[in-house]
């Protein structure tokens, strides 16, 4: 804590010096100046208990009533140094665990970097990536409170104009602490071709090693020592992950290929059977095996036609700071999802989590601009496990029509096949087959004033005679915009034909047709954006940046402030 305190003092001192220098500059045209910039993100949640939708029985609903999350980021550049500090605050926050309350306040990030000729040095909390992130990605995703920063040191060296290497060592951030395991890694990235050449290559190779800490290894060994002899293995302290990747650009084509391999590592396979010493057969045990990922993406873009084909095969590629971590915690890497990122409310309801243990996926995305008014697009994605069992399939179509500058219409239909057994952990559940037509209509009264309507209807398949999961949904939204400052939205998500898990009305014994309304007001002034929302939200999968988790229902008022300065 003391070093962080002194760092803060140093930073503020530098900042004050900068202000002084800037003042001096204003007065004396002094050229010595620093640049201080930053941003603030502040979210506040007022929790209003509503047990009818399951928004209850958490500390926030029961007694705390309010929670806040905030990130205040400051960056300063001067004398060839680049440095930054971030103040993080979590008050009765439901971000870390949606069912619990988390409190933590402190310096969430600091870094300092300097480039000396061809050498660059960065120390502190570092965000970085190797290739597409399959073996290493240090990043943050605030809506899910993912912060996989590396707390350590990184050096980079520009070998030639087109080739550079980097190496790092450190530990992964864990809120205001770090995981005890140690990471180290290196990568070389290059570029082959010239500005005038039609064919260019951007090859690279990276490696990351994780050394498991003694505490985590002791816990792993203690767990394995409760297993019967047929299920045990000797775990490794050191695991290495390698990746080779390349982007080939040739005219309208772009082809990315990455292959990754991980040496033997203990991972928890939730679907592996184990017979306990007591004789019970249970699901889930540690296994150790080598891992691999093969990922490729081929794109073509020319004269209004865009085409992307992607494929991915994943096997045993759960790579974490410690194998005991679950869900989205402690991940060292990021495996790109192989599905379309949907934004419309009902279309995004069933999202496919990346399956680290095993997955085979491919996706085709096509878009064609018929003329300036009309654009057609379609997407198909398919995910199975390594045994061929269907996990997810989506067919998506979209027609976009623009009439002068007056109105636009976006419409289409989405068909999904979603494995509730795997993604929601519901035993024996039939897959959710949905058909969801949608439209989005935007009408501009004048360049500043517009109104937008969107609507979707999700029709759900049957599961053992009843509609699967929550059944059918209807969603409608109206948004009125007064540019550049104001926007107002009102929406409702209505469980029009309830399904298996829809709540039951205790008085009638019937499944309830519940409304989930939402009202938002947005105000923007220059680089400041404010929002105030009344929200009732059904439980579901919430995704951010391709990473998803199950979130409980929400009832209450949300407010946010975003500011850049």
């Amino acid at each position, binding site marked *: 804590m003391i070093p962080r305190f002194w760092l803060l003092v140093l930073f503020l001192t530098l900042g004050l010096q900068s202000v002084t220098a800037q003042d001096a500059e204003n007065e004396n045209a002094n050229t010595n100046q620093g640049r201080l910039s930053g941003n603030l993100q502040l979210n506040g949640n007022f929790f209003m208990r509503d047990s009818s939708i399951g928004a209850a029985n958490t500390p926030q609903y029961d007694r705390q009533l309010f929670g806040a999350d905030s990130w205040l980021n400051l960056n300063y550049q001067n004398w060839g140094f680049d440095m930054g500090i971030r103040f993080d605050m979590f008050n009765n926050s439901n971000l870390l665990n949606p069912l619990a309350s988390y409190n933590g306040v402190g310096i969430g990030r600091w870094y300092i970097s300097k480039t000396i000729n061809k050498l660059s040095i960065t120390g502190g909390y570092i965000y970085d990536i190797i290739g597409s992130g399959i073996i290493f990605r240090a990043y943050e995703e605030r809506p899910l409170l993912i912060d996989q920063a590396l707390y350590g040191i990184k050096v980079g060296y520009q070998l030639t104009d087109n080739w550079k290497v980097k190496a790092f060592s450190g530990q992964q951030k864990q809120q205001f602490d770090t995981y005890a395991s140690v990471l180290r890694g290196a990568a070389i990235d290059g570029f082959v071709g010239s500005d005038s050449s039609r064919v260019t290559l951007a090859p690279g190779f990276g490696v990351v090693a994780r050394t498991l800490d003694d505490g985590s290894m002791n816990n792993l060994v203690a767990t394995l020592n409760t*297993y019967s002899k047929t299920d045990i293995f000797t775990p490794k*302290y050191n695991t290495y992950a390698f990746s080779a990747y390349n982007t080939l650009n040739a005219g309208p084509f772009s082809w990315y290929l990455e292959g990754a391999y991980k040496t033997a590592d203990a991972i928890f396979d939730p679907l592996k059977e184990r017979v306990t010493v007591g004789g019970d057969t249970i699901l889930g045990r540690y296994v150790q095996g080598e891992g691999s990922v093969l990922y490729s993406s081929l794109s073509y873009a020319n004269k209004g036609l865009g085409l992307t084909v992607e494929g991915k095969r994943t096997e045993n590629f759960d790579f974490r700071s410690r194998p005991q971590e679950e869900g989205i915690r402690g991940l060292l890497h990021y495996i790109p999802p192989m599905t379309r990122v949907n934004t419309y409310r009902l279309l995004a309801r069933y999202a496919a989590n990346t399956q680290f243990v095993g997955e085979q996926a491919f996706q085709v995305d096509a878009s064609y601009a018929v003329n300036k008014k009309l654009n057609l697009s379609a997407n198909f994605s398919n995910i199975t496990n390594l045994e061929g069992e269907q996990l997810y399939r989506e067919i998506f179509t979209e027609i976009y029509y623009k009439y002068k500058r007056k109105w636009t219409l976006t419409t289409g239909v989405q068909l999904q096949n979603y494995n509730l057994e795997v993604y929601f952990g519901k035993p024996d559940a039939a897959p959710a087959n949905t058909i969801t037509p949608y439209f989005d209509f935007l009408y501009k009264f004048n360049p500043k004033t517009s109104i937008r309507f969107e609507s979707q209807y999700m029709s759900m398949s049957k599961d053992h005679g009843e509609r699967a999961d929550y059944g059918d949904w209807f969603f409608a939204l109206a948004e009125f915009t007064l540019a550049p400052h104001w926007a107002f939205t009102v929406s409702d998500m209505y469980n029009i034909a309830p399904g298996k898990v829809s709540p039951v009305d205790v008085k009638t014994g019937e499944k309830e047709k519940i409304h989930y309304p939402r009202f938002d007001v947005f105000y923007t002034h220059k680089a400041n954006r404010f929002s105030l929302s009344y929200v009732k939200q059904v439980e579901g999968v919430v995704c951010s940046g391709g990473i998803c988790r199950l979130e*409980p229902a929400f009832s209450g008022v949300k407010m946010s402030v975003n500011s850049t300065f």
Partner: protein
Amino acid sequence: MKKHILLLAAAIFFLSACEEIEPTVTGSMGGEVIESPVEDQLRQVIIEEFTGVRCVQCPAGSAFIQDLLAQHGERLIAVSIHAGSFSFPYSDSQFDFRTEEGNQLISYLNEPFGYPSASVNRKLFPGQFDLQLGQGDWAGYIASELAIAPKLRINIEPDFNAANRELTAKVTLFVDEAITDPDVRLSLMITESNIADLQLTPASSTPQVDYKHKHALRGMLTNYDGQPITESLSAGAKIEKTFSFTMPAEWKEDECEIVAIVSLNGASKEVLQAHQVHVVE
């Protein structure tokens, strides 16, 4: 060129895999079921599992706890607390395992991030977010807690009157090492095992009707966070407390245990010692 060779050599050195000395994994070696008198009592550890009849993954955690109990004998005490989002009974359930104290305890020890989840000695272990632990950490933390000498020992003398179902428990604390924490508490729980009732399992979307629920928390003889110990906890102190409780008729006394824990209350909620006895000896 020399520079590049130097870089390559550094990279190889940085990442090279010298042979590591591997840990020893034996697999299960069977149990060490020992019953010891209070004079010889060693550290006894409590694992409080949070579960629910609608929690599909929880039976796997419970089965794992049975293996841990078989391994550690009387030195490990398990309490299954039915609370949280999966604990709402089915319409066909014979029992509602939820208790007022269980609902308070899940809030006191924080809601789990996922299930199965348990707290070991209510201790915040280094590197953990909170007291709730995924099952990958249970065995290791139990082992590390068992290695610590107890600061006190607990003796429980139950007396159950079958005629009026009144249970009296005399609890004696023998303090071996002075405890200076300002707020120390004694909690007394009643658990019941081998209750056949509905439980969701991975086998089917309909619950198993005859699942044997074990060490389910049925009630407490103290407040959920314990009764403050106001007496001095200096080394050598002996503190006696007596509790009475009328057991509901549906609890089978032969399957019930009294669990006593001495824990801190404050920033740390750590359990200093635990002990359990049968209601009917």
